[in-house]
């Protein structure tokens, strides 16, 4: 199934390059060569054994190599999920940054650059050349290599030294197409020393076709910088969302990442956080609510390269019907990373006998003075708690709901944008009630 893309690249790489900035093209041929060697990942690979991508990758997708503008009014789609959070608002449609005339965005603090990565690569090549592909090019991952070969656009954000963004940056990523469609976006986020930013990315799908998004996001968090990354996925069942998030943390930086899958088709999140300076703080959370045939695999790595860093990881899944969940918590503590403290928890509830969860902590510790722990559980709802509630007049269905909601609560509590936290609480509750929290633009979810 790779062959069609290999042929496509060989035949059209000139067109791809013609519509892309030089900085992005520099890595392109190398990425392609890597992909030819690695191919798409299969379950035979240890890192992909919970992600069976054979079926979605076999679908014939269109790519928009010649960058034909796609007609869409993003505001029509965006009546939905997280309104009313006071944010700077941006759109990416498929893999193209979509410029809108948003009055509130004019008040961005001085020096902050946000826009299309392809355009910024042409207008400020100096900003990209040290960063673009720096984390992704060594990843030895077929999907990442594929992205390097085919990515032509994406979201770019630069926050200069000591600049604090007063409001969250909200990126709405909309998949819109009349035919089966594949998007390879490459996002780049740079926070200089002492900068602060909150970033929220919402994934939505609009049309009743098969979508495959293969996204790579690179984030550079400078010394003393603070970065929060929230990803809210609410896509339809015909979507395959392959997302690689690579974060590099410098000394005394603070990162919170929280990935929430409310509704989807097939999702693979690869998250790698490298702690490349001392005294870093990292909190990585995630939550999955799955039913029908949904698949979600969160493959996470936290790499402690330097001493005196703290990391904490918390993932929770509630799975029903025939849904499948996967979680890998890789923790690497380098030989010199003494005084590391790293805690990992993955807890899962299976609501019936057909849902499946596979979880794997994977700790590699080469330092000898560290505090590390991990715990993984798979269980059912607490029957005694349910009966206790029923004995107070609460119906069984409401009791189940309260218990599921309570279970996911600590992940939601780790959202530090209050309006977003409230909104997600509401969405989770609606989702658990079976009133789908889909966006109004969605056509096929039911």
């Amino acid at each position, binding site marked *: 199934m790779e062959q069609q893309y290999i042929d496509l690249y060989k035949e059209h790489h000139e067109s791809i390059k013609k519509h892309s900035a030089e900085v992005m093209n520099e890595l392109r041929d190398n990425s392609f060569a890597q992909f030819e060697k690695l191919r798409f990942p299969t379950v035979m690979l240890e890192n992909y054994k919970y992600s069976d991508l054979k079926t979605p990758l076999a679908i014939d997708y269109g790519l928009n190599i010649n960058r034909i503008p796609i007609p869409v009014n993003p505001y029509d789609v965006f009546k939905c999920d997280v309104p009313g959070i006071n944010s700077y608002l941006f759109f990416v449609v498929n893999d193209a940054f979509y410029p809108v005339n948003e009055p509130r965005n004019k008040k961005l603090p001085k020096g902050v650059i946000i826009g299309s990565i392809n355009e910024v690569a042409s207008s400020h090549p100096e900003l990209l050349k040290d960063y673009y592909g720096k984390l992704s090019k060594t990843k030895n991952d077929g999907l990442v290599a594929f992205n390097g070969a085919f990515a032509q656009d994406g979201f770019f954000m630069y926050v200069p030294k000591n600049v604090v963004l007063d409001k969250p940056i909200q990126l709405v990523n909309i998949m819109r197409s009349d035919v089966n469609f594949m998007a390879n976006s490459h996002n780049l986020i740079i926070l200089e020393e002492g900068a602060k930013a909150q970033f929220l990315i919402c994934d939505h799908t609009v049309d009743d076709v098969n979508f495959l998004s293969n996204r790579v996001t690179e984030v550079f968090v400078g010394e003393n910088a603070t970065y929060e990354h929230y990803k809210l996925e609410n896509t339809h069942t015909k979507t395959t969302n392959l997302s690689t998030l690579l974060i590099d943390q410098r000394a005394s930086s603070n990162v919170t990442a929280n990935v929430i899958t409310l509704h989807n088709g097939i999702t693979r999140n690869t998250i790698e956080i490298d702690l490349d300076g001392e005294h870093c703080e990292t909190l990585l959370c995630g939550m999955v609510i799955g039913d029908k045939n949904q698949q979600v695999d969160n493959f996470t790595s936290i790499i402690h390269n330097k001493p005196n860093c703290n990391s904490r990881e918390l993932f929770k899944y509630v799975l029903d019907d025939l849904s499948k969940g996967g979680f890998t918590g890789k923790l690497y503590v380098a030989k010199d990373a003494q005084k590391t403290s790293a805690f990992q928890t993955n807890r899962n509830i299976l609501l019936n006998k057909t849902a499946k969860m596979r979880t794997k902590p994977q700790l590699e510790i080469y330092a000898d003075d560290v505090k590390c722990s991990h715990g993984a559980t798979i269980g059912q709802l607490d029957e005694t708690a349910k*009966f206790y*509630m*029923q004995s107070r007049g*609460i119906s069984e269905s409401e009791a189940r709901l309260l*218990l599921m*909601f*309570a279970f996911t609560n600590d992940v939601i509590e780790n959202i530090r944008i209050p309006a977003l936290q409230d909104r997600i609480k509401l969405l989770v509750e609606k989702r658990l009630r079976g009133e789908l929290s889909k966006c109004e633009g969605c056509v096929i979810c039911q």
Partner: protein
Amino acid sequence: MLQIKNLHANINGKEILKGLSLTVRPGEIHAIMGPNGAGKSTLASVLSGNQAFEVTKGDVIFYGKNLLELSPEDRSREGIFLSFQYPVEIPGVSMVNFMRTALNEHRKYKNLEPMSATDFLRTMREKKELVEMNSNLANRSVNEGFSGGEKKKNEIFQMAMLDPRLSILDETDSGLDIDALRIVANGVNKLKTPENASIVITHYQRLLDYIVPDFVHVLYDGRIVKSGGKELALELEEKGYDWIKKEVDGE
């Protein structure tokens, strides 16, 4: 109000209740005493609808309705309240949310509108005072990290909120120090009206110093083998249960 007739119940195939009969009328307090393993807690579980127990024979009629056909939540909405011997901790579910949901489900059952937020909070405040409960309770998860005494107070607090017609107190005194026991018993006494009734299940006479029963029943080997007034409790306290066992087993 409540008629239990010839009730038989099993758990895991083992028969625990073997033909228990009991009648409770409004305004009455019944104490059920008995040695360990007699079936006291089983009676409480069966009345509240715990699925772990299987009723094999007998009837339970509550205000004309067949109680055994009702779900646990409907029994509660009909006015049955069980104070658990071991109240359950529910991390992540706040007391406020839990209580508001319960109360409004009761109201819905009676075709009443949900209670307004202000009325609800005022009611919570009033009822908390009844059991001298810590005021920050509302923000905590149900029973999570509560001491033994706080958990039992919380049971009586919930009872006050739901205003049941029949309350069943299952070993409410177990694990309580004397102060907590007094507070819990005071709460129960204040909630007493001529219209409601209580079944107090206890192993010791101690609680009955505070909650004075109209009737005392001795449960042994799955049946009520002796009934009397409150003086029976004192006799049991003094002489233990052996004489009753001998009386029954010797039959």
